[in-house]
C-alpha cells in the first residue's frame, strides 16, 4: 500500500514537472509574440516622415477615426504593407528552415540548402535580362518567374529523390547540385547583362521590402497560413522524425511520404517568400536555432516559435535597414545577418546546453 502511495506521489510530481516544462515553453512563445508586436510598432514608426506613436496606434486600431489623413495614408499604404511583408517573409523562412532541418536531420540546412532561392533568383534575373512581361499583369512578371523557377527546382530535387530514394543524404546531394546549377546560371546572366540591367538584377537579389504591396502580402500570407495548418496536423510526426528514420518508421510513420510532403510545403513557403522580395538569407538558418534553444524539439511549439523568431529578426532587420543610412532604405537582405548573428551568438553564449 505504502509502495503504491509512493509511486502515485512520484507520478504526480512527474506530471507536475512536465506541465511546468510545457508552461515555461508557452511563456517563451507568448513573450516572443509580445516582442514581435513591440518591434512591429517600432518598424511602422521608423521612416523618413516622423510619426507620433499615438497617431500610429490610432490609425492601426481605429482607422476610421484617425485625425490625420496623411498619417493614415503613410501607415496603411506604405509602411504597413512593408511591415506585414517582413512578418510574412520572416515567418515563412523561419518555418521553412525548421522543417528543412527536421526532414534532413541537419542543423546546417535552411531553405537555401536545396537551391530554391537560387532558382527563384535565376527566374527573376532571366525575366529582367530579357525584359519579359506577362500579358495583363506586367508588374507580377518577376515574382511569377521567380516562383515558377523555384517550383521547377523543387521538381528537380523531388524527381531525383523519387528515383534514387528519399533519404536525407540523397536530398541534400540533389539540392546542393541544384543550388550550384542555378547560382552558375545566375552568374552567367549577370555576366551577359548590360550595366543598367545588372544593377536591377543585383538589387532584386539583395532583397527589399520596398516591393511589398497588399497583394503580395496576401499571396505570401495565404501560402503561409495554409502551410502552417497542414504542418500543424503533422507536428507529432515531425517531432518523432528527430528520433531517426528507423525509430520513426517503427512508430508507424511513413517517413518517405512525410519527407516528400514537407519538402513540397517548404519549397512553396520559400518560393512564396522570396518571389516578391528577393533572396533574403540567414533567417531560415538562425530562427530555428533560436527557437530550439527556447522550446526544444516539440513541434507544437518549435514551429510557431521559429516563425515568430523569423519575423522578429526580419522586422528588426527592416528597422536597421531604415536607420543605417538616413533618407535611404538599405536592401534588407544585406542586414539580416547583421541583426541575426549577434542575437544567435548571445543565446549560444548564455545557454549551457547543446541543442543539436
Amino acid at each position, binding site marked *: 500500500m505504502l509502495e503504491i502511495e509512493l509511486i502515485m506521489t512520484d*507520478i504526480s510530481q512527474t506530471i507536475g514537472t512536465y506541465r511546468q516544462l510545457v508552461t515555461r515553453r508557452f511563456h517563451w512563445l507568448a513573450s516572443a509574440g509580445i516582442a514581435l508586436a513591440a518591434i512591429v510598432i517600432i518598424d511602422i514608426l521608423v521612416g523618413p516622415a516622423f510619426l507620433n506613436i499615438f497617431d500610429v496606434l490610432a490609425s492601426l486600431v481605429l482607422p476610421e477615426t484617425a485625425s490625420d489623413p496623411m498619417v493614415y495614408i503613410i501607415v496603411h499604404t506604405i509602411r504597413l504593407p512593408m511591415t506585414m511583408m517582413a512578418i510574412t517573409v520572416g515567418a515563412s523562412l523561419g518555418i521553412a528552415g525548421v522543417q528543412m532541418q527536421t526532414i534532413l536531420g541537419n542543423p546546417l540546412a535552411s531553405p537555401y540548402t536545396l537551391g530554391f532561392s537560387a532558382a527563384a533568383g535565376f527566374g527573376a534575373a532571366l525575366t529582367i535580362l530579357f525584359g519579359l512581361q506577362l500579358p495583363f499583369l506586367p508588374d507580377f512578371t518577376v515574382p511569377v518567374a521567380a516562383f515558377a523557377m523555384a517550383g521547377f527546382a523543387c521538381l528537380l530535387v523531388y524527381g531525383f529523390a523519387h528515383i534514387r530514394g528519399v533519404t536525407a543524404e540523397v536530398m541534400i546531394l540533389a539540392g546542393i547540385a541544384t543550388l550550384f546549377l542555378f547560382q552558375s546560371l545566375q552568374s552567367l546572366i549577370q555576366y551577359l547583362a548590360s550595366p543598367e540591367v545588372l544593377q536591377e538584377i543585383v538589387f532584386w537579389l539583395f532583397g527589399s521590402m520596398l516591393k511589398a504591396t497588399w497583394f503580395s502580402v496576401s499571396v505570401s500570407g495565404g501560402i503561409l497560413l495554409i502551410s502552417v495548418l497542414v504542418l500543424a496536423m503533422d507536428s507529432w510526426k515531425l517531432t518523432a522524425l528527430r528520433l531517426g528514420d*528507423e525509430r520513426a518508421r517503427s*512508430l508507424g510513420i511513413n517517413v518517405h511520404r512525410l519527407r516528400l510532403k514537407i519538402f513540397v510545403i517548404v519549397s512553396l513557403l520559400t518560393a512564396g517568400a522570396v518571389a516578391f522580395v528577393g533572396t533574403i538569407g540567414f533567417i531560415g538558418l538562425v530562427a530555428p536555432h533560436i527557437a*530550439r534553444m527556447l522550446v*526544444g*524539439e516539440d513541434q507544437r511549439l518549435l514551429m510557431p516559435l521559429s516563425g515568430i523568431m523569423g519575423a522578429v529578426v526580419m522586422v528588426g532587420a527592416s528597422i536597421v535597414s531604415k536607420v543605417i543610412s538616413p533618407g535611404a532604405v538599405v536592401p534588407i537582405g544585406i542586414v539580416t545577418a547583421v541583426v541575426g548573428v549577434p542575437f544567435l551568438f548571445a543565446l549560444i553564449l548564455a545557454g549551457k546546453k547543446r541543442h543539436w
Partner: protein
Amino acid sequence: MLKVSGLCVDYGPVSVLKDLAFSLEPGSFTALLGANGTGKSSLLKGIAGIIPAKGEISISNDLPVMPQQRGSSIAYMPQDTGATSSLTVIEVILLGRLRSLGLQVSQSLQTAASGILTGFGLQTLETRTLDEISGGQRQLVYLAQSLFRNPKILLLDEPTAALDLRHQLIVLDRVVNHCRKNGTIAIAAMHDLSLAAKCADRLICMSQGKIVADGAPDKVLSAPLIRKLYGVEADIVAGHKGVLHITPLKAVETRQASAPPKYRRSEPREEWSGE
C-alpha cells in the same frame, strides 16, 4: 497468436531470410539467437513491416496483416541507441502513442506516460533530453516507449546490449511479466545465451538466414548447436532451478557462413508504412 509463414527478405541479389515459418503463443517470450549477420534484425524488421518482405504474417487469426497495418499492433525497438536529440524523455514516451496525440496532450495520457517512467525508475529523468542521458538509460527509455504502446507483438533488437547486469535482469523480468499479464508476444534478438536460457520460453536459433533449431531452452541448447551457431566451444551446466549456464571456452575455426552479406547501403529502399 503470431503466425509467420514463407518469410523471405532479399537485400538486392542477396537472400538474407529464406522461407522462415513459425508460430508463437500469446504471453510468450522468445529469444532469437545466432551469430552476427544471420538475419535476426532482418527477421524482426520484416515482421514489423519496416523492410519489404515476402510471405505472410498473421496476428490473432489466420488472416494475413499487410505491412501498412502492422504499426497498430506491433512495436519494434531498433538496436541502435545512438540517435540523440534534444527531445525530452517524457516526449519520447508520449510518442509511443502517436495516434492518440493531438495539439493538446490529454491528462490521462500524461498520467500513463509518467506511470511507465516510474515503473522503469526513470521518473527523475522525465524532462532530461536524450543527449543528456547515457546509452543504457536511452535503451531503457526506448523499451519503456515500446511497452507504453501496449502492442500485441513486441519485437526487441538486442534490448539489453547497453545495460549493466542488474538492469539486464530487471528489464527482461519486466518484459516477461508484461507479456504474461497482457498476453503480449515478445521476440528479442539476444547474444547472452545464459540470459536467454533464463528468461525465454522458447529459443529460435538462426544460421545463414534459416532456422536451425527451435524449442524450449533446455531442449534446444547444446554444445554442438553453439558450435554450429557461433563457432565456439562452450560448457553448458544446469544450475539453480535447472537454469542453464553457458560458458564459452574457445573460438574454433573461422566460419564463412556467418559473414554479413554484402549489399548496397541504400537497399532495400522501398518503405512500408503503418499508416
